[in-house]
Every structure is written in C-alpha cells, then in structure tokens.
C-alpha cells in the first residue's frame, strides 16, 4: 500500500488515487484520451483533501504527528542549516542516539542544535530507541547547551518524542532528575533558545529540551502532558480509548496552545501534512526560526533571562489572576 495516504481517515483519498492510476493506465495502454476524466478526478482529490484536512480531529492530528513519512528533526536540520557536526556522549555514561547535538551554521552564523530523533525503519528505530531518550540523552543535551552558553551560541532545540524511555535502566540512572536539572538550567541559560515541536511533544520527555525563549509548533504536531494512550489507560481504564483521551486533552488544538501562552507561533504545513512536501515544510520552519532568533538576538542578556522567566512564570490558569511582580521578588 502507498504509505502516503496510509491513515484510516485518508481512505477516501486512497480510493480516488487508485481510480486516477487506473485512468492513467487505461490511457497509456489503449491510447485513449481520458484527460477530461483525469482532471475531474484530480479536482475531486484536491477537494477531498481540503475537506479531510481542514477538519481534523485531535486523534487524526496525533496520527499525522506520528506519520511514518513525516519529516524528522534531522530532515529539518539538514535542510535549514549547514555543516551540522554531531557531538556525542554525556561524558558520564554513554551516547544516547535518541537525542542528537552539535554545532551548525544558520546563514553563516554558528548555532547549537539539540534534536530528538526518531528512526525511519526498524533498524534505525532500534538505534534511536523510537525517539525515547534515556537520562544520558538529557545529560548530553545539557552538556552541549552549556558548551553553547560558554561560547555564546544560540540554541535551537527540536522536539519529537513519545516521551522519555520508561525502562529499568532509565529509572536507575534517574531520568526524572536529568529532566528536572535540564529544565532548571535551561531557564537560566545565557543564550537565546528557540524550540520547535516538529512531531510528538510527549510530556516531560519533551520539556527536558523545550524550555525555550520561543516555542514554535508545527500545525500537525502535538504537545501534551501525557500520551493519549496512557491518559486513556488511567481515566478510561482502557488503552483503546486513546482517541477520546486525545480529544479530551484537546491535542492538536494549536490555537489553544497559543492562547494559553505555551507556544509562540504555529507553523503551517503543506496540505495533508509535512510529509507531502518536506521541502516546503522546511522552508516555513526555517523562516520562522530565523525571525524568532533575530528578535531574541536584539535583547541584552538580562532582558533575555527576565523575559524567559516571565514567560514560564505566567503559565497557568487560576481563579486569581493578579499579576505578581516576580522580577522584584527574585532580584
């Protein structure tokens, strides 16, 4: 089956594309002119795409965020930046291949890349642990972010993880502590941080590299406190209610994320998802990253830290919305 429209709600498209292929074949084999039929079907495909993708449910967006052909972090990094040079290891335990880091150049200027990376096939996924970092991944990320801070390089982090790895070793080496320390240290990092959520923004595993001055999210990515499957297991006592959980959590509702102040910009994707035109998606992402970074680079170090603190300090919904002068209390 063509992986391009492999999701269940894309079924009408698969039918139409089959018809289109049959027409093409018919015309080639019998030398008949079916161009009017072909254009009619093509128009119908366009129309069907618009109706499917303009009205996605939460669960459908989660499926798009996990689409097997969706561009991953490295696809964006390699297309937007030049000379990405990967740096390995946390200098303590080992090299975690589900979080990558290293220097690269954006329009000739040096930056630090931190990226969660999934695999495209089984072999790659085993190497990348399905994009689920162990503690050493977070510790490597922190080491490289501190390196960036030391030499004044802005940091661009790329989020795409179902969550931190729930394994025995991961707990034994204190993944919670690794994430907590990253969050704390990122809040005080003296260089600009831009975060892009490109696919799955799975809970604490995502947040461990996502405390940016600016957080951008792609149209069909999701950012959540818990995976829809786990939420379903806890609240519905049944993992199979993930689609209900996804809609209760309002996953993929990027307007809400922006309204709540969790993200600063929603990056539009090509119709039907980034996988339908990775280069177009990368162009949009590149443009957004450049413009946010340019704004951040105008700030002094103190302004940067103050704004970052304020950004996170104000997140939350309370009955008491009085504004607190946190900068005063903290000085």
């Amino acid at each position, binding site marked *: 089956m063509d992986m391009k429209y492999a999701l269940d709600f894309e079924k009408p498209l698969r039918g139409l594309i089959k018809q289109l292929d049959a027409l093409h074949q018919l015309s080639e084999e019998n030398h008949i002119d079916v161009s009017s039929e072909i254009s009619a079907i093509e128009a119908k495909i366009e129309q069907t795409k618009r109706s499917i993708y303009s009205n996605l449910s939460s669960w459908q967006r989660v499926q798009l965020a996990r689409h097997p052909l969706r561009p991953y972090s490295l696809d964006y990094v390699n297309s937007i930046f030049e000379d990405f040079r990967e740096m390995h290891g946390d200098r303590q335990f080992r090299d975690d291949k589900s979080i990558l880091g290293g220097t690269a150049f954006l329009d000739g200027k040096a930056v630090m890349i931190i990226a969660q990376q999934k695999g495209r096939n089984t072999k790659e996924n085993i190497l990348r642990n399905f994009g689920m970092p162990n503690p050493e991944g977070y510790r490597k990320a922190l080491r490289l972010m501190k390196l960036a801070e030391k030499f004044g390089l802005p940091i661009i982090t790329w989020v795409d993880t179902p969550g*931190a*790895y*729930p*394994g*025995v070793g*991961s*707990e*034994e*080496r*204190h*993944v*919670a*502590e690794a*994430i*907590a*320390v990253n*969050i*704390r*240290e990122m*809040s*005080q990092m003296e260089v600009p941080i831009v975060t892009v959520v490109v696919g799955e923004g799975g*809970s*604490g595993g995502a*947040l*461990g590299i996502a*405390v940016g001055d600016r957080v951008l999210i792609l149209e069909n990515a999701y*950012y*959540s*406190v*818990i995976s829809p499957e*786990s*939420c379903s297991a*806890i*609240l*519905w006592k049944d993992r199979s209610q993930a689609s*209900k*959980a996804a809609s*209760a*959590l*309002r996953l993929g509702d990027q307007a*809400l*994320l922006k309204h*709540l102040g*969790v993200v600063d910009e929603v990056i539009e994707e090509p119709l039907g998802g980034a996988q339908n035109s990775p280069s177009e998606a990368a162009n949009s992402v590149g443009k957004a990253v450049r413009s946010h970074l340019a704004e951040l680079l105008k700030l002094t170090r103190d302004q940067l830290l103050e704004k*970052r*603190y304020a950004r*996170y*300090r104000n*997140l*939350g*919904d*309370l*009955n*008491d919305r009085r504004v*607190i002068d*946190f900068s005063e*209390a*903290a000085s």
Partner: protein
Amino acid sequence: MPIFHRPRYSTVQVKKKDIPQGLWQKCPASGEIIYNKELEQNQNVVPKSGFHFPIGSRKRLDFLLDEGSWDEKDSDLKPTDPLEFKDQKSYKDRVATYQKATGLNDSVIDGFGKIYGIPVSIAVMEFKFGGGSLGSVAGEKITRTIERSLEHKIPCVIISCSGGARMQEGILSLMQMAKTSAALAKLSKAKIPFISVLTNPTTGGVTASYAALGDVIISEPGALIGFAGRRVIKEATNEDLPDGFQTAEFLMDRGLIDMIVDRREMKDRLRDILSALYLKVQHKKA
C-alpha cells in the same frame, strides 16, 4: 545461604484497606495490630515495625512545625477548568469531590512556619486531593513558596506526595514543571537552601521537576519514588523489575537520595540540616 533471608528492600504498597479507618489497623509489614489512637499519636508510623502509613498534609505540619508558627498563604487559590475536561466524569465534578473530601481548594498547602525557631517557607502536597496531582494551582503555590523564600531569604522546604502532573489541566500542568524549576534556579543562585522531602508516592512530573532539585533530598522509608509507573515500564520493556525497584532505599543505593529519615525524626533532622546550611552554626536543642 542463610535460612532466614531478609530482603534488602521492602516495597511499601499501600492499598485502600491499609488506610486507617475504624478502631485499629493491621500493619502491612509485620501484621501487628495497632490501635488507631496510638497510630495517630505516633504520626501514623507503626511503633515497632516502623511502617509508615500515609498522613494528611495538615497533620504532617502539626508534627513538623513549632506550635503556633504556621502562617498559611494562598489558601484562596482555586483550580479552573481550562480544557473543560471530561472523561467518564467531568473535571469540575472531580475537583468538587476532592475539595469536599479534603477541605482544601487544591493539592498543596503552603505558608510560613518555624522548625525549632528556624523560619522556613514550606509547602506540603496532599495525596488525597486527586492523587496530589500538579496542576496550575499547585504549581503556583509551589512557585510562590519558593519566591517567598527568596524574598525573605529563608530556607525552602517542599514535602512531595504526588502521582504527577494533573492530566485534566492538560499542557498547563506540564508547564508547572518549568515554572517551579525556573523559580528554584533563582533560589539556587541566591544560595538559599532548598530541602526536598519525598514521601510515598512521588512520581511523574513532580519527580521530574522540583522534587528532584533539592540541595538536599530526603525520603521517608519505603516510599515509592520514580518517573514512569511500574506497569508502564513492565509493558514497555517486558523486563522483570528488580527487587525493591523505585523504593527510597533502592534510589539511595543508586545515588539519588541523600538520606532516608523516619517521619518521627524528620523535624530534628530538618533542624540539623537547616542549621548547617542556613544558620551555619549548631542549633541549640530545645
């Protein structure tokens, strides 16, 4: 091999039937029968076996703080329902149930207090309020607790007891991890001590933020502490969990926790640590 083998770790799994009600209790560790009244006077710790039953947040403060020193703050903060979340029950109804059961507005109580005269800014999590889950209100209260430490230059003590982030407030709950940890970064820069006390259970987003960021991390014995749930780990990995996995003792062995302290000795121990790190001189014993 010895005939009588004592396990190195004991996992405390408190089931509903273990929570004190009625006249007496059976200790899950030793089987000994104990009167509730005696248990209460003993901070819900079984005198002989040392088994720690859960204790309510207010009772805990009664035992921990100097009499009359408690000055509660932020008790007017109440949760909202930003997602209008509904599973089989609506979040609004769940909150109302928790509020009725606990007499609290949310899962954290916070304020000022004194421990043998040493002033502290302190917060305690209440497990009975929705599993002590961390939402916007709890995150705000923890953050204000830290900020009051900064403002008054007094130590911060946070006693965690939580299943993790509050799902029903969605992404904003996750953001409380960033908010609280960012405040702790400032506290750390200001060189004001933060003592994190972990109690049974402390898991998920709470462990992955302030609970793991103490200058000193203390745990009660036998407490379950971790990030992912045991069942999730079993399902994801098909691995057998080692003996004592995710207990306080297991984690002290592996270097996360500074010390394990019996609830009945917690006040004295906090005094010792706070006098070392904050007063920097030995504190006269009462």
